């Protein structure tokens, strides 16, 4: 049983290995990273300020404020002046979710490095739990992961096909609208010219010049 505990521990340790994105943040500036997440998909994010001086604690000025919002403006996570943190939620609406990082203005201006890892959909699934529940061996776990990846690829294909169909409809509508508008512009031109002629003719007849 303790062998299995060791297994889970190793798994747990490894899931926290940094496999993430890093970017620099100047004090007083905001950087936002956004991602398109589909509704009802799980998303997990972890952020931390990188300590460039190993062994020394991070100074107080090296803290960020984080806010995660959906495209409709709903707030999903807020961390004020923290060194690290994480958020996990199931996306209620599909759209662009934005995670904004902000460092308060300081003199002298300081540059922070933030480590950020944001996974959603298939990659966000917690595989250690799946392994624990089923007592399944390594090979099977890997193959399960591959199967999940293939399913998500399949779903994504359907989504892309749907979007492409919508765009085709939009293009057809634009095309027919352009044709109508050109025809209408010809009519407008001719009618305006006709009106001009008629008006000037009556005007000159009235003035007894014609």
């Amino acid at each position: 049983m303790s062998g299995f505990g060791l297994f889970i521990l190793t798994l747990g340790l490894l899931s926290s290995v940094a496999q993430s994105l890093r970017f620099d943040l100047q004090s007083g500036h905001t950087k936002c990273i956004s991602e398109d997440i589909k509704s009802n998909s799980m998303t997990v994010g972890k952020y931390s300020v990188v300590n460039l001086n190993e062994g020394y604690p991070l100074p107080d000025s090296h803290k960020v404020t984080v806010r995660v919002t959906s495209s409709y403006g709903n707030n999903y996570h807020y961390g004020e002046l923290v060194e690290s943190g994480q958020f996990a939620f199931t996306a209620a609406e599909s759209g662009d979710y934005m995670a904004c990082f902000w460092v308060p203005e300081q003199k002298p201006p300081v540059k922070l490095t933030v480590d950020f890892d944001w996974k959603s959909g298939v990659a966000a699934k917690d595989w250690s739990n799946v392994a624990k529940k089923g007592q399944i061996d390594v090979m099977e776990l890997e193959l399960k992961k591959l199967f999940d990846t293939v399913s998500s690829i399949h779903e994504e294909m359907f989504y892309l096909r749907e979007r492409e169909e919508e765009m085709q409809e939009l293009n057809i509508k634009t095309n027919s609208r352009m044709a109508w508008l050109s025809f209408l512009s010809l009519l407008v031109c001719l009618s305006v010219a006709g009106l001009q002629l008629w008006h000037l003719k009556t005007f000159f007849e009235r003035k007894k010049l014609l």
Partner: protein
Amino acid sequence: MERGRRLGYAKICIFLSLLLSFVRHLSALSITVNEMECVYEYVLYEGDTVSGNFVVVDHDIFWSSDHPGIDLIVTSPGGNTVHTSKGKSGDKFDFKAPRSGMYKFCFHNPYSTPETVSFYIHVGHIPNEHNLAKDEHLDPINVKIAELREALESVTAEQKYLKAREARHRHTNESTRKRVIFYTLAEYLLLACASTFQVVYIRRLFSKSVAYNRV
């Protein structure tokens, strides 16, 4: 007997940890590039294939033509440039990492309008025969599984690229539609104004109060 099983379990853990460390996942993220934006990605093993793509998603352009594109510069931890793309509105890249370490991916926007870039970077590792010889628990089948996983990753990357390009095309189409309608209505208005002006001018030329004799 008990100790033997424990040792066996420990070996499985180490093996699994090695296997899991081959997985690198990143979702397609978007950032707004004002002038230069850099992201860093850590490559664990030398010889890993780093693949990715980026697409510039246009903002609502109304007056000007298409944005000329942004540049991508990938720098290795030693300071050499590993890959460059200049003036592209979307590109795929992949290269073999010459050494392990922190790689820098910089997007450079040569123009003043900020652009949103949607990018995806993936670092993939396939254990090779050298690793096989070192660890007897690393089955050749695991190499095949890793290759399969890398192939699926490339499909996923291509899908993300297509999705981002589709979003860009949709933006362009919607702005085209708006512009067509706006320009056509403006054209009608201008035509009507020009003809009214013509009529009014000719009437003025013939009116008695203003220089009748000029005509």
